[in-house]
């Protein structure tokens, strides 16, 4: 798992790549919560390079979604591969995170 970051205006994009599993979910969750803690309210999760997500990774994403909801911010996702989209749909994450095909569209949605 690796996270690449990009800040444009007040929008922070975190590109999470590789595997979000039992071994890597915790550092990813810590980074997400830390971003919210430090005041980020418009977060884009670019998951184009995410190959695999297990339930422990879903828990981390949900924890971040709950925290962000509490501070009235918004997390959107983009670039979901078919396997990731399938897991998101089973878990009902398509209801928790608005999803966009590309990073550009996700950033545009956060800017509006």
């Amino acid at each position, binding site marked *: 798992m690796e996270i690449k970051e990009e800040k444009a205006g007040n929008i922070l994009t975190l590109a999470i790549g590789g595997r979000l599993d039992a071994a890597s979910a915790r550092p990813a969750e810590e980074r997400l919560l830390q971003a919210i803690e430090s005041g980020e309210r418009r977060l884009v999760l670019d998951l184009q390079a995410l190959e695999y997500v297990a339930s422990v990774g*879903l*828990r981390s994403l*949900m924890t971040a979604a709950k925290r962000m909801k509490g501070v009235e911010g918004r997390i959107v996702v983009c670039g979901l591969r078919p396997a990731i989209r399938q897991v998101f749909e*089973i878990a009902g994450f398509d*209801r*928790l995170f608005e999803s966009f095909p590309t990073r550009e569209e996700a950033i545009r949605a956060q800017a509006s």
Partner: protein
Amino acid sequence: MPERSLTLRNDVAEIERLSQAIGEMGAALPKDAVGEIQLAAEELVTNVIRHGYETGQPGTVDVLLRLDAGGFWMQVRDRGRPFDPLSKPDPDVTAPVEERKVGGLGILLVKRLMDEVHYRRVGDENVIETLKRVGPLGSEE
């Protein structure tokens, strides 16, 4: 009929070894299906590690993999306390974010990604058996 058995320590670091074995056995199967089986396997083993054994207590998880005409079959056995992960109701995945529970998604994934999942208590063992009906590439009707 290819069959393989593995004994894993109850440590999440062991999941990679299981994932690899599934990948090798499923080399001729559609890649998507293999990925789904690997995910189901990770969820089942993680579940045993989290619920079956007291935290930090050494233990093992025995996994049997078999690929035959019926599909890809997997059995996961542990000697932890009796625990039927299928007995709990599925989490409500339609609830708004503030009401959603963070747990229960692993078993939900197993149920949806695999075609059959069964639990039995046999002697001092928890036994989960699961099947994905899948054949080699090009063999679909």
